[in-house]
Structures are given as structure tokens and as C-alpha cells.
């Protein structure tokens, strides 16, 4: 405006550039000024019954809006692809400069790349990079290198898969954001499941981006369910303080869930919940011979995923040095635990156990035992 005041001749009239249209299209609409009040003629039912004339649709404006939306979608996709490529390039740089240095400065180095992911609208990818230090640091020193390799390698797999098929809703969810609840419920591709569910675990964690993630795992109590588990994820700002859970651990209810479309659906939205009157149902009795079969199948379908709920056969918790292990009674297969369980649980026979396996550690969620149901702190 200042330049125009100084020298108006420098400004020639021309067509409105596309970027201006785009920018105006993305601006939040300001509130319309209040319509002037009609001349008061007193209240009248007849006047109220007169239908107001509808504003005529402007086809040109509609076409412009549609074009702008498509353009925005293209821009977003381009941004996401760039973010995925940037992350791959960053990981390649870390390999070239040495992972020992990255381990020492993981917290500082991840900040810049995580911010770049968020700028490119790849919020989910950014969040996963942001949580890298906490996941790696949770392990003993000698296992951190393996954990870092696993985390970075899985990010490479995710980036490559997304760049190969950016329209895939599961991959897009893992890179950008999940579909809205309304979009999910309206989707014909979203699998649905009903029946009796039990709340087998809940984990609340504060993320580095200031959000609190509340994860609730439901187990289907049907005899042979197509989807044995459902994960309900909720996010809210940490500034809102502690929020009480909508579920009690061990609670059973009749309900229906809609899964986000995926090769092996897990994340879901609860659409119906009814309290039960009768006695609680037992857990489904059949457990796969291989306790990690569910994890292996999930990795085959979506190798970028981190952890998977598993149902373990009868076993016990044992100790070896500072570590605690779950060990199957029959096969003797042993899995190391992420956290030491309560002293009381350490010696009990666990008839059936539900936990989260991430390829390295088992986080126990709940178990059935001769002492009744047991909940663990995931």
C-alpha cells in the first residue's frame, strides 16, 4: 500500500493470480454482519409460514471452490510426500554421520525434523519422531542401539510405503491424521463389529506435543471374532488436566465399534455401548499355539506398526536378574516384560494373559488367574 501511494503507475491491472484465490479460499470466513431487522409488523403465524427464498446457487463460485479444494488436496499430498522424503533423507544422514552420535543427541536432533514433519502436515509422522527419545531411552543401554535401528527402519518402511501409495487410508493415517469420526461412520469400507467387549487395558501418556493420549484396548468376547481387539484412541490437551476415564478396567459391555479401514483393523470408534445385566463372560478359550502369531500377522500386513495386542496361553512370571519374564507353561517360550509387575503377580499362574508386544518387550494389560482377573499397569 505504501508503494502504491509513492508510485501508483507501478501497479498495472491484471487478472487475480491463482495463489490469491487459493489464499482467500483458505481464509476463515468472517462472521456475516447481522442482517438489518425487518420493519416490525408484529408477530404473525402467516408471516412465519412464508418460505424464505433460497439464495440462488452460483455454479461458477461452486466450481471455483471445488477447484480450490482439489488444489489444496494436491498441495497437501505434495507436502506429505515431501515430508516423507525429507524424513528418509534425514535418516540417511544419521546413518552417514553415525548412530552413536545420534543416540547422544537424539533429543536435540529429532526436534528439527519433527517440526518439519508437522509443517508438511505429516502430524502423525512428526508425533512418532517426537516420541523416539522416550521409547529408546526406556530401554537398558545396550539395547538402545537395536531399538533405534528398529525405530528408524520402521520409519523408512512407512515412508516408502506411503510414497508408493499415498491414497491408502491406513498409510495416510499413519503419516498425517486420522479420518474424522463422521467420515469414518459414513464410510462403506469401514468394518463394523458388535457383541460383548471387555476393557482389557488403558494407558494414558502425555506426549511431547502437549497432548495427552488415552488408549483403551477392548477385547471381543465372541468365540471366534473376526477382529479380536479394538483400540479406542482419544487425544486432549494436557492443559485441560487429568480426565477421568469413560471405562473401568475389566468392565464388560454390549457394544458396536467401527474400525478405521486397515489391512488388519485395530483402531476403532465406539458407536454403541449398553451395560450388561448378567454375569460377565469368560475370555475366549482358544489361544494360538504360537503366542506371537497375532504379532507376526500384524507385521506381515503393516510392518511399520510398533506394537500389537497378543493373547498368551497359560504361563507365569519369572525373574532373571533385574528383568521379569513371562514364560509359557507348555512350550517354555519366554518374553521379557517392559515393567516389573506387582510382587503378588510375580508368582501366580496366569491362565490367559493379554499384553502388547513390540518385538522387544511385553507390556502386560490383563490376565485371568486362579485369583480372578488381574489388571496390570501397561
Amino acid at each position, binding site marked *: 500500500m505504501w508503494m502504491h501511494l509513492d508510485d501508483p503507475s507501478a501497479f498495472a491491472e491484471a487478472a487475480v493470480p491463482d495463489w490469491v484465490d487459493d489464499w482467500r479460499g483458505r481464509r476463515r470466513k468472517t462472521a456475516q454482519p447481522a442482517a438489518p431487522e425487518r420493519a416490525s409488523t408484529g408477530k404473525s403465524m402467516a408471516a412465519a409460514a412464508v418460505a424464505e427464498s433460497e439464495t440462488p446457487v452460483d455454479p461458477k463460485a461452486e466450481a471455483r471452490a471445488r477447484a480450490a479444494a482439489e488444489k489444496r488436496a494436491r498441495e497437501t499430498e505434495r507436502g506429505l510426500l515431501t515430508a516423507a522424503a525429507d524424513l*528418509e533423507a534425514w*535418516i*540417511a544422514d544419521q*546413518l*552417514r*554421520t*553415525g*548412530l*552413536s*552420535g545420534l543416540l547422544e543427541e537424539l533429543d536435540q536432533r529429532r526436534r528439527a525434523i519433527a517440526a518439519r514433519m508437522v509443517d508438511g502436515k505429516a502430524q502423525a509422522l512428526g508425533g512418532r519422531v517426537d516420541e523416539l527419545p522416550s521409547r529408546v531411552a526406556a530401554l537398558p543401554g545396550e539395547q538402545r*542401539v*537395536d531399538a533405534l*535401528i*528398529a*525405530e*528408524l*527402519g*520402521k520409519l*523408512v*518402511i512407512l515412508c*516408502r510405503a506411503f510414497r508408493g501409495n499415498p491414497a491408502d487410508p491406513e498409510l495416510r493415517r499413519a503419516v498425517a491424521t486420522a479420518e474424522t469420526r463422521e467420515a469414518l461412520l459414513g464410510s462403506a469400507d469401514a468394518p463394523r463389529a458388535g457383541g460383548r467387549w471387555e476393557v482389557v487395558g488403558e494407558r494414558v501418556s502425555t506426549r511431547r506435543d502437549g497432548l495427552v493420549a488415552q488408549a483403551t484396548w477392548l477385547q471381543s468376547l465372541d468365540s471366534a471374532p473376526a477382529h479380536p481387539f479394538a483400540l479406542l484412541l482419544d487425544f486432549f490437551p494436557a492443559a485441560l488436566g487429568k480426565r477421568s476415564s469413560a471405562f*473401568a*478396567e*475389566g*468392565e464388560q459391555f454390549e457394544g458396536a465399534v467401527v474400525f478405521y479401514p486397515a489391512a488388519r483393523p485395530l483402531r476403532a470408534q465406539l458407536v454403541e455401548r449398553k451395560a450388561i445385566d448378567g454375569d*460377565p463372560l469368560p475370555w475366549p478359550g482358544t489361544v494360538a499355539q504360537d503366542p*506371537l502369531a497375532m*504379532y*507376526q500377522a500384524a*507385521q506381515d500386513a503393516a*510392518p511399520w506398526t510398533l506394537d500389537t495386542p497378543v493373547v498368551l496361553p497359560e504361563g*507365569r*512370571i*519369572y*525373574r*532373571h*536378574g533385574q*528383568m521379569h*519374564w513371562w*514364560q509359557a507353561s507348555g512350550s517354555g*517360550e*519366554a*518374553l*521379557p516384560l517392559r515393567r516389573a509387575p*506387582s*510382587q*503378588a*503377580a*510375580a*508368582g*501366580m*499362574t496366569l491362565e490367559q494373559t493379554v499384553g502388547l508386544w*513390540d*518385538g*522387544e518387550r511385553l507390556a502386560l494389560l490383563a490376565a485371568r488367574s486362579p*485369583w*480372578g*482377573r*488381574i*489388571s496390570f499397569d501397561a
Partner: protein
Amino acid sequence: MRELENGIAVMRGRWLMGAAALESAPESWRIAAEGDPEPELVLLALAAQAGRTAFRPAPDGALVQGEPPPELDLPVMPQRSRAAFRTVLQVAKPAGQADMMRLLAMVAARGWVVHPLDHLPEDSGGLPAVYAPWAAWAARSAGRNAPEGDWLDTENFDLLTPQARRRAFEACRGTDPATARDLIAERGRALPAEQRLALVAAMVIGLGEDDVPFLEGLASDRSAKVRLQASGLLARLGRAADDAALATELADFHAVGRRMLGLAQTSVGPATLKTEPQRRRRDDLYGLVSLDGLAGALGIGREPMLTGWRFKEMRATAGLVQMLLRTGSNEDIAIFATHAVHEGQERLGELIARLAPSSREALIPTLEQVAETAPLVAALAHRLGTLEAAACERLAAVEAVVKQIRAGEETDRRSPGLNQALFDLGLIADAAGAARLLDRFAKAGLARMDPGLALLRFNAGLEPADS
């Protein structure tokens, strides 16, 4: 598989240093990676996935099995009550260890025990006897050699944990006070002062004339606390050995008068003191002089002094109660508790806790007219969770709670003592009584899911085990 493991180990070493790993990769991986513009990223992805799926972790030594908690004589409470119990622990939050022990006692009185993963009780004073095997198990798990058993003898005296020894000593005093006394006389000197003090304090059980020589011998104990405890026990037996000068000094802080209520009656109360140092000195003297000593110095009998006490200053009453608990006999305490119910009610809960169950029962009809809940909890300590619905509704404490709720509604501010009062009522009511109180408080304006009502909700849902 070993070859793959070694290959990944070499690649890891090279990546740590910042060197390319392509040449060290297993051949099939190298072939897969070579065509890619970033072969190292392909190898990284393969290594990550192999590390997470191709290998299974294995302990590098024998696994040690833990010992599960032993089964107790009572069954674990039903599943539906377990969730309500956990809610009590989370939201109602028993105020301290004593409240926690009362809650466990109430559950045990209903015929249940808690699930060890919902709450593993600490082995502290007041733990219901049914949990004794868990206390011994916890001690074993912690590496302490703690044989079980509710009897104390020279063989297990040094092996038991301090808590288990105190419990066994109390049991022993209940049935054979002389044997218990001989044990403490023979082995007690080697114990630390705190443990010695706990055992000497437990000699109140079955206290009798036979204990006098041993207690007099403790006058030379190296711990001042043990000496004071022993002198208190002697005082309860009417053998106070007070310093006359101290007793007189304390008496000077009091005023004796007469009041005319049909019959002339002695009235005793604290004199008005002007300075804080005077009040502090009086507090100290309450801890050094016996009840007998004070009564003697005032020139009146113990009973007239207790029944004539004027509750005009809370601090002085607290000092007297402390003296009474330390040096008063059970009869003295019963007399003062009865007087306090009618007149003052301060520190009443502590006094009632010292009474025998039969003396407590005698006070209950009077306590039902008292607005405080703590004395009721103390009076019903031997039968928590059993007060019937009709009796619950009669309680003046319930009326006081209803008033607090209504006042809170009007001022939008919760009374600070409301939650503790609700917790206390949850401890003493039976299931039907708890349900009745829930209705009553809901009508008064409290939401049914109010955190303060958590214990009453749990209580109402906890049916007796044998029903």
C-alpha cells in the same frame, strides 16, 4: 539364523561409526539393496524388521519362579466389588494407615479379603489377623527369614520381623502374660529402642501386679521413651512414682472449684494462662506427671477430678487425655469417656479406642447422639460394617452430615470434614444401612456418584460372604 544375527551385528557396528554397511550385509540383502538409490536405508529397514520378527528373545540364564501369595482363610471379594474397592482407594482415599486398617477390618468382618493385586496390605499395627500369612509371605519375598506362627518363644524371637514379633507378643500376652514378660525380660534388651518400646507398650494387654518388678526394672533402661512407657504402665497399676515438685507445678496450672447442680460437685479446669511459655510448660508436665500425681497434688480423688473436668480449653484437654492414655487405668478412661460424651467430646475417639469392647458397647447408645463420627468408629471398632439401617438413621452424625451437605449446596463450598464423615459412616454401616444412607444423602443433594460416597457405595454392594 546365527549367520543373519552375526551379519546384523556387523552392520550395526558400522552404522554406529557412520560407515556404510552394504559390503557387510548378508548376500540376499545386498542384492535387494543394490538397485536402490539409498541402499543403506533398504538395509536399515530389513535389519529393523528382522530384529523385530525373525528373532525371539531368550533369557541368558535360568529363570527364577516367584512364590505366589498364600491363600487366606477368607475368600477374595467378588469381582463386581473389586472395582468398587479400587474406586474407594482412588477417590475416597483412606486418610491414613489407621483408616486403611479399619477398611480391611470392615471387609474381613463381611467375610472377605481384598485381592492382592488391588491392594497388598502393609504389615503395620492393626492389620487384621486374617492377613498374617501375607505379611509372612511378603517378608520371605523380601529376603527376610520370617517363620509364620502366632506364638513367641526363645527360638523364633530373633527370627520374626518386628511387626510379626509384636503381633505374636500381643497374642502371647493375651493368653500367658507371664511367659511373654519373661521373654521380653530375657531377649528384649538386645532389641533397638523402637522395637523394645513397642513390646513394652503391648504389655498393657493382661497388665497386672506380677508385671510390677519388671516394669520397675525398666527405670534404668537406656531409652527415655521406654522409661516413660514403663512408668505409665506402673501408674495404671496405682504405682506412680511422680516427682512431687512437678506434680505441684502442674496442679498450679489448674483451678479447683465447686459447682452446684442439685448436688455439690467438684469442678476442675485449666487456669487461664497469660503466656505461651506457660502453656508449653503445662503441655510438658502433662507428659511427665501421672494422673494419680495430679489428682494428689490437687487434693482430690481421681474420679472427682475426671468427672469434674471442664472442657474450656482444647489444648489443656488434649494434655489431660494424653496423660490419661499413658497413666490412667481402664476404669479411669471409661469414667472420663462417659463424661466427655456428655460434656466435651474432644479426643473422644482415642479414649474409646483404649476401652474394652464391653465398655465401648455400653457407650454406643450415648454416642449415637453425638455429631462426630470418629468416636462412633472407635466404639464400633470390634464390629465394623455391622450397624443396622435403623440404627444408622438414628445417628446424630448422619443428621450433621445432611446439614453439611445442604450448607454446601447453599454456599457452593464443601465442608472440609464431610468426606471423612462419609468415609466413617461407610465403615460402620452394614450393607442395608449403607444403601439407606446413600439414599438419604442423595436426597439431601449429593450426587450418587460423588467421590465422597465411594465407600458407602462399595459397602452397599458387598454382601456378606455367607449369604
